[in-house]
């Protein structure tokens, strides 16, 4: 049983759930306390010890039955209750039907299913070893069932029934036989599904271990967003978590040190009243160092990846920011703060794109800024840092640099994050050179490393 649990943990890891060695130990200890006889308790004890993230519950729920399923109900032997005559008849009928699907019929009638090795071999033939993600298990199962002849089964059963009738078996016996065979069919399908699921899980776990280290390395941080493959982007999304932890502790430390700012006489006198006014405890004015942000993001195709990572970083860092409102623009601008509350950033960006009023699907910052001034100017005051994330390519629309200037005047500061290298600014439809004079800072944001460096500066040099 311990082995099974360990295999299960491997499977969880393959599905992307983080399980530490300490947690595996907890799971085994929990198992020894609660036993394994009550399956729901067992399941809950495993979940409480292994999965610490609500988002990972789905993976757990999917994998658990594959590893701790009953293995499917056992197959029954159809011949058991039969008279010797009937048994002979069945055997004769089966051999008369002998063809490609003989094997399947044997399994279904004899109650002796395939051995573990046979199942493994069949799963391999169905392509289990090529699986790239756990979702493929279902597809492989279907393929395996088809290879075994499940799709022809209905027809075969009809033939078998006709054969038996012709041989003179009683209708009652035939019905009973069919019942058993049907139950066996479901049981076998269940067994196969579990086997495939497990095999795919193990396969993925192995693949993960073999994956070259370089893929996780720092290079990915420096790879431009637009050059990321889907897999690399996924890896990077996970990396964001670690990055955020770093940024957070740096920011928190600086904030703490920054906190001993000005001496606060009033509070010190109050605090030291109980020591007869002798100043034992000194009090300092806490400086409000958490920035309040307004993000204006270009969500056109060229900017998607950069925006996604930006929003990811900002929303992971919510506790270091006193207030953040986000706006997305394309042809026009819309607020996406509320939409961002969901945990799925990709989905939120998708929603944002849907929320943007129709019209020409061409980037138009000028028009978008006008909308911002009309509807959302309350978001900006003297304490706000405005961040515009965009490439400044306006599809030849009016740039309205005057609005950017006005924005800078109203805000504490205006920062522009541009994923394009400076030598491309001003080429083609880029209006970046027009905007640049009105920005307090322009940071390059071509890859995650640059993006996080920019955010680090934001959080600390306030």
């Amino acid at each position, binding site marked *: 049983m311990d082995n099974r649990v360990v295999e299960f943990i491997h499977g969880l890891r393959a599905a992307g759930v*983080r399980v*530490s060695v*300490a*947690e595996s130990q*907890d799971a085994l*200890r*929990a198992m020894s*306390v*609660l036993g394994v006889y009550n399956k*729901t*308790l067992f399941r*809950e*004890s495993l*979940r*409480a*010890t292994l*999965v*610490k*993230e*609500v988002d990972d*519950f789905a993976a757990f729920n999917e994998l658990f039955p594959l590893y701790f399923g009953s293995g499917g109900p056992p197959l029954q032997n159809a011949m058991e209750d039969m008279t010797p005559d009937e048994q002979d008849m069945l055997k004769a009928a089966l051999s008369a039907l002998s063809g490609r699907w003989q094997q399947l019929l044997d399994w279904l009638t004899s109650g002796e299913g395939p051995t573990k090795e046979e199942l493994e071999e069949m799963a391999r033939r169905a392509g289990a070893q090529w699986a790239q993600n756990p979702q493929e298990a279902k597809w492989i199962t279907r393929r395996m069932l088809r290879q075994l002849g499940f799709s022809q089964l209905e027809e075969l059963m009809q033939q078998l029934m006709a054969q038996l009738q012709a041989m003179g078996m009683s209708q009652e016996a035939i019905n009973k036989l069919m019942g058993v065979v049907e139950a066996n069919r479901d049981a076998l399908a269940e067994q196969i599904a579990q086997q495939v699921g497990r095999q795919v899980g193990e396969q993925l776990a192995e693949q993960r271990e073999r994956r070259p280290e370089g893929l996780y390395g720092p290079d990915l941080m420096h790879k431009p967003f637009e050059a990321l493959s889907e897999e690399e982007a996924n890896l990077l999304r996970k990396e964001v*978590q670690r990055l*955020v*932890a770093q940024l*957070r*502790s740096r920011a*928190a*430390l600086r904030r*703490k040190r920054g906190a001993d700012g000005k001496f606060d006489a009033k509070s010190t006198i109050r605090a030291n009243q*109980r*020591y007869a006014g002798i100043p*034992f*405890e000194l009090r300092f004015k806490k400086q409000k160092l958490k920035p309040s942000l307004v993000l204006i993001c270009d969500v056109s195709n060229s900017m998607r990846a950069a925006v996604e990572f930006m929003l990811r970083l900002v929303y*992971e860092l*919510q*506790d270091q920011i006193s207030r953040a409102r986000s706006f997305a623009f394309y042809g026009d601008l819309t607020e996406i703060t*509320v939409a961002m509350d969901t945990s799925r950033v990709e989905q939120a960006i998708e929603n944002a794109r849907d929320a943007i009023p129709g019209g020409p699907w061409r980037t138009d910052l000028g028009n978008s800024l006008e909308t911002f001034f009309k509807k959302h100017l309350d978001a900006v005051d003297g304490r706000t840092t405005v961040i515009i994330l965009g490439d400044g390519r306006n599809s030849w629309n009016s740039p309205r640099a005057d609005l950017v200037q006005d924005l800078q005047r109203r805000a504490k500061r205006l920062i522009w994050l541009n994923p394009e290298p400076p030598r491309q600014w001003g080429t083609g439809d880029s209006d970046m050179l027009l905007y640049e004079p009105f920005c307090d800072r322009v940071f390059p944001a071509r890859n995650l490393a640059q993006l996080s460096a920019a955010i680090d500066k934001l959080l600390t040099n306030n």
Partner: protein
Amino acid sequence: MFTDINDVLQRFSQQRYIATEEIATVIYLAQSLGKPVLAEGPAGVGKTELAKVWAKALGRPLIRLQCYEGLDESKALYEWEYAKQMLYTQLLRDSIGEIVGAASSLADAARRLSQEEDVFFSENFLLPRPLLTALTAPEPVVLLIDEIDRADVEFEAFLLEVLSDFQVSIPELGTINAVHEPMVLLTSNNTRELSEALKRRCLFLYVNYPGLSTEVEIVRLKVPDLRPELAQQAVEIVQQLRNLDLRKIPSISETLDWARALVTLNAGSIDAAVLRNTITVLLKYEADVAKARRMMGDGGRARPEY
């Protein structure tokens, strides 16, 4: 101590808390493995209540540490009682004079005094805060660390020692070990991601909004004056509201408030008028109220029968 999971369920229900089997399992495991529980879930589903009930069911005192931004060791763990220390130095001036009096030089006096300084940094002058109280309590306690997600990340790191070894290090005194290992419950509303290290040390419990029948049961238990069919109807409406895209989803405590409001208003049934007058008990934002009214008006299932 609980003897098994059914015992947990039974004693919790004696305390008028309806625990799911999942909650009972995790509580029992926490006791048998001696690990803290991290309860996560939306606000108002009874996470804090769980700790209170846990303490009551075991007949143990509950010690609560409410987390907030800027919470630090001196507020969570211990503080030196400066005032008491000062008072003692004043009162003991004579005896100090005796010790120092015989000294031949300033250096000698300082040396003599330093031999006695342990007196002033002893447990007599230690002002224990919730964590230290929980560890040094003469009887076993239940420790509730509420809304850990509000505390800073450094505080989370500081908690690790307490949670994994049930001990704390005080520079002047050394390491203090727990007299009895407390049962620990941490709650989080998930406003930010907690650190891996903290999660690793805890058993994880996700408390979600209860299903229809459980919530009806809770309402019947807590507001027994509400007629059963009315309770059923009220809970159905709340559960439907939860499916809407609201800014603040009504929690169990709001359901209970509403149920009490219905009792107070002596409502015979939940019709449009009653709903209009009382919906603000459930929903706290104007936009949400408007949305809910639209839903009711659409002839959805929640349309009251009248």
